[in-house]
């Protein structure tokens, strides 16, 4: 299975999905006009991975901004992770937020309330 790497742009995040290591990173800004199109390669890759996932799957979400069009796609990513978890992979989401960014912390908590996967909230120093 090939890894997935998408370089970030001012409107879309960097995505790095290493399937052998079971590690997924989403970092940057996610404010595309068409989020479904942007997230499709990742959703497809997760679909490919979920049949035979690694023992552990670690997901790091390090977003500075995301628009509401991205928020449903991010939920779709998390729903795939729930399947990965129920297929036996120990799955964990690290949700990063900048110091004092209560909105981003709250956004993580909103997902945490909906998704049945352990979240760890990690505060970062402001850049």
């Amino acid at each position, binding site marked *: 299975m090939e890894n997935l790497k998408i370089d970030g742009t001012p409107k879309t995040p960097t995505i790095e999905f290493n399937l052998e290591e079971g590690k997924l990173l989403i970092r940057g800004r996610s404010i595309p006009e068409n989020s479904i199109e942007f997230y499709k390669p990742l959703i497809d890759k997760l679909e490919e991975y979920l049949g035979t996932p690694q023992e552990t799957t670690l997901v790091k979400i390090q977003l500075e901004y995301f628009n*509401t*069009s991205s928020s449903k796609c991010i939920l779709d990513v998390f729903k795939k992770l729930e399947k990965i978890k129920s297929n036996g992979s120990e799955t964990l989401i690290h949700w990063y937020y900048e110091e004092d960014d209560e909105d981003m912390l709250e956004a993580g908590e909103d997902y945490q309330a909906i998704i049945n996967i352990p979240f760890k909230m990690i505060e970062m120093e402001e850049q």
Partner: protein
Amino acid sequence: MTIKLLDFYNLMDQDDIILSYKGDVSSDLVSSVLQIIESKMDKLEEPSKIRKKVYNVLVETLQNLYHHIAENPGLSVKEEVSSVIFLIGKSEDYYIVSTGNFMENEKVNQLKERINKINDLDTLGLKEYYKKVLNNGIVSDKGGGGLGMIDIARKSGHKLEYNFNKIDDQHTFFSLLVKIGE
């Protein structure tokens, strides 16, 4: 053209308008406006909390305009109702993002009800409503799905102000004013 540019300048100046625009909304325009306002807020050394809220509200309001035009072919074929307007301003107490667009009369009531419902909710109510809509499984073909206005209200911290001006038997002009700040 009868407009006096100095009058226009003074009007913008006295209302603390940083940027105003009338015309079509493209993806590139959204990017440029975001960039301009970001560097303006950098220069003003706004606290990052305010910067992020303004940025978020701008993204949602401008993308609302973008999708509104794209998803209403009835509007985009008629040039006189396909243009939008927006203003971004800063008073002493808060930032203002205001947008205006034409819409079909038959959609007015639905939008009015949605905004009133949002305005009736407090912080906690908005959070619960957001989560409910986030998880309702309804997605438009571009990924939205009714979250935009709720998110704008959450980031704003103020009630949404709006106006509907009926233009003719088909069209209404909708204006929205969002305040962001303490």
